[in-house]
């Protein structure tokens, strides 16, 4: 159903690498929870709501929260780029890439804007209570490990609601300079949730911040039949603190790779996005 699940026998969730020997398998994934993530951004100063569908893949003790299309989008963009540059060179049929990119060879538009989705992947380990944010790029990979003590301070209230048939209870917490309201269900006894959220006696199905800038809402639930694995790229990670990590990600997220095919050359550069996203964590 979701691209990225290339073969029936093995769904690898996480990282950007495609070959098994470049992946480190962390755990089997049992469940996939799809969240619709909406955020109030501004585009050329005008307010817009950007929505995305993100996946929380849950294993027995670990989980990963990511954009399920990101890996495929990157790979597609890479192949398109190769295809276009090969075409410009009056492709040599013996070139080592030809088989891989043949389907993209005609994709030689004048202008392509690569927008591959949300690059940040958030790994959680329920045993060690650590939240690890990872940004994989082709050259370097950065990582930020957190133990979020704020998530020990959830206040559970008596309010209840139903989210796709699951009875949910309300809880509130402050984290990263924002106040959040979460709805969790005891019927799914996993201490996990979208993004970095965890720390409740059941899965968090909905989170909103009190300024209504963000909302995560569970929209789908899928059982993996023993064929899905949470993986991480087997690469050297550069560790940094949260502030540095967020700064880097914001910077990378604020531009798209754009490319032209013109007069036999492929031109590439970055284009600044007109869209400005709100900060989830306000760090002083």
């Amino acid at each position, binding site marked *: 159903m*979701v691209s990225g699940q290339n073969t029936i026998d093995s769904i690898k969730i996480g990282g950007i690498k495609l070959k098994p020997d470049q992946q480190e398998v962390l755990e089997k994934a049992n469940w996939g929870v799809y969240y619709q993530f909406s955020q109030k951004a501004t585009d050329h100063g005008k307010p817009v709501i950007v929505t995305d*569908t993100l996946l929380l893949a849950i294993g027995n003790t670990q989980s990963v929260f990511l954009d399920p299309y990101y890996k495929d989008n990157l790979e597609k963009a890479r192949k398109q780029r190769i295809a276009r540059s090969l075409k410009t060179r009056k492709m040599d049929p013996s070139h080592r890439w030809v088989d891989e990119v043949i389907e993209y060879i005609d994709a030689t*538009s004048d202008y392509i804007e690569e927008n591959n989705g949300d690059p940040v992947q958030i790994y959680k380990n329920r*045993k060690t209570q650590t939240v690890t944010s990872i940004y994989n790029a082709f050259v*370097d990979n950065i990582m930020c490990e957190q133990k979020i003590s704020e998530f020990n301070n959830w206040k559970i209230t008596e309010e209840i609601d139903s989210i796709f048939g699951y009875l949910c209870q309300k809880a509130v917490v402050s984290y990263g300079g924002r106040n959040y309201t979460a709805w969790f269900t005891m019927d799914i006894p996993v201490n996990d949730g979208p993004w970095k959220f965890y720390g409740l006696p059941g899965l968090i199905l909905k989170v909103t911040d009190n300024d209504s800038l963000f909302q995560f809402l569970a929209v*789908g639930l899928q059982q993996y039949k023993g064929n899905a694995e949470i993986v991480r790229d087997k690469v050297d990670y550069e560790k940094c603190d949260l502030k540095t990590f967020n700064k880097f990600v914001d910077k990378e997220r604020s531009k798209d*790779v754009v490319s*032209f095919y013109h007069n036999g*050359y492929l031109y590439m*550069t970055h284009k600044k996005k007109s869209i400005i996203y709100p900060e989830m964590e306000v760090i002083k």
Partner: protein
Amino acid sequence: MLLLMGMCAFSLHAQKEIKGRVLDSETLKPVPTVTVTMYPVGSQSILTYTMTDEDGTFILKSNDMPDSVTVSVRAMTIESQSKSIKSDIGFVEFVVKEKAIELKEVIVDAPKIRQTGDTLNYYVSSFLDETDRSIGDVLKKLPGIQVLSTGQILYQNKEISKFYVEGLDLLQGKYGIATNNIDAKQVATVQVLENLLYDVQYNGILSHTASIEYPNNSHSLGVNFSLGKSIDAINSEVKFFANYNRNNSIVLNQGIISDFISNSFTISPSINTELGHYFIINYNASYSNSRSEIRKNKMPKIHYFTQALTTSFIPVKNIIVLPKIRPLVNKLNKNG
């Protein structure tokens, strides 16, 4: 007596704790990461909760613990269990059966649309029915899109300006042919690109080249043009090159940007021409991005698409240079 009552009250509200352990019924090994919840007996409101450690143990602490409580253990991998106990019991043990929990699946219908920035992606497969023949049949179903019987496509009641197939504007306005004939099953995604920057900005100025005759041997030409938003992408040095094409021979001159204010450029290339010839002038802009910006962020090893950055260019194609010199234009017109 008063003192005694005071002590009683104190002991009622003092922080109490219940320790415990969760073991697997077959292996008797500890079960980690089990959610342990405590309620007052007969109530659903959670008093406190915790998770078992690596060794299967847990501690439930509460400032306001009634005399008897219900403790329940739950996890994805075990059959859940509850015990009602006296709160002064001190220690409670659960022996649980391993069992993968069954949850009701909810059909994932969300990833049909994905919107980030200006581009709206529709995943065709999620809208596709058996009866759909052409891509037009599918397009009709996409929110915000209308298809007229002629094959014309409206997005939010406005006719679309371009119809790209695999990124190519193959049919140039006659896309109705495509709407009604492209097999829907061959299409993976449909993208709606709003404000397609380069098309909008460069329309008109990029559509054809100009031939200009220069009367003098040496000539200086001032050109003013705006590149629109495209350039705000790059906070880097910008250079312009002018290609002079005459009888298939190319002379390359470098233009200099004398002004770089709010995306508008003034270039004053100095051109040496031979008398009486026609030239086709193309301007190209190139950017040399020093990557210094990226280096500034205190993580020197981190950079992104290194290769792309060192060779990044945006060509500005075939800008028509409209000479301001009136006699020249007149002469051009006379020559037809």
